């Protein structure tokens, strides 16, 4: 077996463990008559093939030194212990009570020496230590419910999350804030929209596009916006709170079933699609300005119910020029329970797939049609392909985002029914504002031209 020692392998691992130095200790490296002294840093394992020792010099710089037969490495001194930061004070009772559930992701992350990139690592306590001003907004209890990358989340994680939030709602919190990685955040927000019925208070998802370990992080402002929304916005829906623009000024609060991550890296990556954000929150003044529609108002006396089962045998298939019918056949043969198609334009996919789709529906596998245009509504009556798809039994999902249709179908199949006619009814019933029947001219972005 290969010896791995704080990310070092091979000869270096043997050498370092042999002399008993650990990351944080001062080491002395003598090479070609030159002396380098510094703090030993762990090695990023993805690059461990080179015999390179990483030390932090007195001036704070890290450097890599190649260690060969003639290089001497020795322990200079053991590390000194770092001071712990004081615990935050107990909060006062009169404020709103909210719960902060963390799932991992960029809002709570720091360097990972395994890969050299950022990973979820800061504990929720560290979040509160680091952003004491959150206690001005609400009394909160922070808890880590899972620690996974956003992209590793599965439907069973939605179930766990929904259970946690439901329990908190029964306990009477004024709102739940969920710190979540941004990549798949809109899926989870949609899942919780469906999984808890008759919500008395809001669920606010929040993330960050710049990790919390950097001075320019957007996480504190986003968290403040989420806290303000959770504790006092007059709404009881599943929401996403993130930067409204590239500036550190307003936080936009979007409906969880009508929002999408539209940029890989910008702070204002989240944009409402076929809908407007519901609130703009000023995190400095705590002002909550309503700019969109509230569908379910806050009512702490309302009793929530939990319907949190999701079917993981649902697939999302994209229409592309060379798409082959085997994809649909394979899904049916493999026992999938539902298929969502991200169709082209008004909701199309190649005529070559018609027979396979017909066979899927006949085998009891519902096929839902959405559009990869994202903006606008599907309409299968305009072109003949669409009409044939309708004849084959495809369910046209209005202006639902493909991801939301996927989450909803997964929820309907596990929590409601597998009966295909019933599935069609549930899919076309607007439960959480996932369908907007009315698109005004302003619901479409315009680029800036000069």
């Amino acid at each position, binding site marked *: 077996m290969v010896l791995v020692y704080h990310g070092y392998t091979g000869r270096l691992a043997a050498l370092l463990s042999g002399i008993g130095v650990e990351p944080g200790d001062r080491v002395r490296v003598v090479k070609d008559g030159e002396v380098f002294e510094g703090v030993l840093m762990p090695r990023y394992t993805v690059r461990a093939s080179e015999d390179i020792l990483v030390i932090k010099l007195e001036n704070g710089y890290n450097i890599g030194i190649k260690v060969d037969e003639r290089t001497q490495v020795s322990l200079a001194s053991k590390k000194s212990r770092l001071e712990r930061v004081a615990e935050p004070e107990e909060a006062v009772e009169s404020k709103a009570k909210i719960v902060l559930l963390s799932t991992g992701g960029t809002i709570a992350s720091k360097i990972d020496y395994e890969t050299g990139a950022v990973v979820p690592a800061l504990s929720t306590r560290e979040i509160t230590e680091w952003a004491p001003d959150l206690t001005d907004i609400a009394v909160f209890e922070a808890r880590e419910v899972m620690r996974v990358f956003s992209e590793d989340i599965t439907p069973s994680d939605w179930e766990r999350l929904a259970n946690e939030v439901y329990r908190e709602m029964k306990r009477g919190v004024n709102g739940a804030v969920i710190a979540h990685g941004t990549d798949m955040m809109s899926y989870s927000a949609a899942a919780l929209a469906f999984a808890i019925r008759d919500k008395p208070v809001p669920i606010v998802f929040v993330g960050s596009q710049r990790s919390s370990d950097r001075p320019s992080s957007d996480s504190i402002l986003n968290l403040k916006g989420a806290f303000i929304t959770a504790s006092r916005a007059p709404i009881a829906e599943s929401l996403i709170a993130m930067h409204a623009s*590239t500036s550190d000024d307003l936080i936009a609060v979007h409906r969880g079933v009508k929002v999408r991550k539209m940029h890989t890296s910008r702070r204002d990556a989240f944009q409402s699609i076929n809908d407007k954000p519901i609130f703009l929150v000023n995190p400095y003044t705590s002002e909550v300005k309503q700019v969109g529609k509230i569908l379910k108002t806050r009512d702490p006396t309302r009793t929530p119910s939990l319907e949190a089962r999701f079917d993981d045998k649902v697939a999302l298939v994209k229409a592309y020029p060379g798409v082959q019918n085997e994809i649909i056949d394979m899904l049916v043969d493999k026992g999938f329970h539902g298929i969502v198609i991200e169709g082209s334009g008004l909701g199309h996919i190649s005529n070559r797939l018609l027979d396979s789709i017909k066979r899927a529906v006949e085998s009891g596998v519902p096929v839902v049609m959405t559009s990869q245009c994202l903006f606008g509504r599907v309409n299968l009556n305009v072109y003949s392909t669409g009409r044939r798809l309708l004849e084959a039994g495809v369910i046209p999902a209005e202006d639902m985002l493909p991801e939301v249709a996927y989450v909803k179908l997964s929820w309907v199949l596990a929590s409601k029914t597998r009966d295909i006619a019933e599935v069609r009814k549930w899919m076309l019933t607007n439960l959480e504002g996932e369908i907007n029947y009315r698109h005004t001219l302003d619901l479409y972005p315009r680029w800036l031209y000069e």
Partner: protein
Amino acid sequence: MSRAVQGLDYEKLGLRVGLEIHVQLDTREKLFCSCPTKLVEEDSVDVFYRELRPSRSEMGEVDQAAVLEWKKGRRFKYDSPRSASCLVEADEEPPHQMNREALEVALAVALSLNMRIVDEVYVMRKIVIDGSNVSGFQRTSLIAMNGWLEDEDGRVRIQTLCLEEDAARKMGESEYEVEYKLDRLGIPLVEIATAPDIHSPEQARRVAFKIGQLVRLTGRAKRGLGSIRQDVNISITGGGKVEIKGIQHLYMIPRVIEYETLRQLRLLEIREELRRRGVVKESLRAVFVDLTDLFRNTQSKLIKRLLTEKNAVVYGLKLAEFKGLLGLELQPGRRFGTELADYARVWAGVGGLIHSDELPGYGITVEEVNEVYRRLGANPERDAFVLVVDERSKALRALEIVLERVKVALDGVPEETRAANPDGTTRYMRPRPGGARMYPETDIPPILITGDLIESAKRLVPEPFEAKLERFVRDHGLSRELATSVINDIRLDLYERLVEKWRGKVPPVLIASTIANTLRMLENEGVRVENIEDEHIEKVIDLVAAGKLVKDAIPDVLREVSKEPERDVEEVVRELGLSRISESDVLDLVDKIVKENLEKLKSRRDKAFNIVMSEAMKVLRGRVEGSLVADIVKRRLRELDIM
């Protein structure tokens, strides 16, 4: 200009100076994105606002300088010009791979400074939260260590060479907001730090120049205002290590070092005096006395204004046994009291303070001064006091800071970062930042320095000084003196380019002397040579090459250009009447002169040549080479048998 500081024996004082030289690289793209490395003047279209807060280093520490900046609580306004910045500068997209061209230049400079190159480069985030970096950190990487540079006064060790990104340009600031432009952010910089091996102000200037010149010799350095910035670290025996930032010009380095030496010396004298007076830290008590009622009806306009403008109070602090010391001058025009005011301004945000050594003054009467002494329980013969007029919390904070700084006077010179003023004096800026502000840049994997990279870098290693000198003497026909001057000139790259451009058409000696001698001559005349750009010089040489300008006229043209640098050089030449005259015109003129003076010339044959030449040159000077005129005059006179 008279020297303010004379007779300092730097050797005896144990002066130790280290330099940090930053040179902008003239690469095609920025260090971590594909934007061009240029400054632009375009209208603000994309503007956004941000705030920053300090973060913990990977060692769990927080940098004190960063905390100080955060406490100012200012927000930042960014102007993001589309032609010279993108999402990376706006901190809206992760950095791209490190620019290989910049890395090669850095390696080439490291090689020519005899440095040890690291085997693997780690890009670090250096926390800087004054807003000059949108991300809140400057990306920097240590490329090489432990080199040296030869100098007349002995070898100067080079400690580190780093490759880093330049910061954004500050366009304005107020108490609440700082405005930056993002074009400069991300331009690659090499930062070269010497060991404190420099022992005189003049040597510091010379070494700074040599380092800058070395980078320029790679042909990939930017020139012009702000392209090279130098920080100096200064200490004397018994003093403290003080870092001075923002020295705009090379020629200011000696002055800054002189003044800092003086400041440290005076601070040590103050320490000695305090010891003589028997002052100990415990005798400096934190008793802050509210004196607002005393100044309710003051005649002092300053205090009156402050009291009415804001919700201000007057607080006083007694400094036992400090009489006379606050008024002591540390640097020209800057007293120990000024030093205390700097601390109060930086840490507490107050406008300033008033101390007893400048009173009575500011309209404060002797009676009021005596009353302050009485209320503070102070002895007017021996003690000093400090007054601050501001909002209560700020005033108290200011006096706390003043007291801290005064206690440090008993230890001597505090280690700190100072900013250079235009006159060479300095002001307190912040505490010296430590290694705590370093954090690995997690978005960029470490870069292995391969043999390939080193080979490409070797092609950029500049020719050593001696080799260049020999080549200029041998191939260009320059004298050793001229060759040395041109190699030491900031426009060396222009010289090499023009020699290459006009090979065989314009003699290198002319180009070299224009750059090295003519400009210096004009500068001594008081001409504003900083207005003369490379393009002007190049145009002048082009005109000479094209036969449209005579070399004798170059100083006149450049003198005129310096007055109106916007104007086209050719137009200036025309207007000055310095356009070259054709040979046939010269012939006609000579004929005319000979004809008009024929009798006189015949009678004074031995002087004939001089007479004609002198008359001709009155008209032709600067418009045609004298040698050509002489040839024509001789020929004509011989034909007429007058010579």
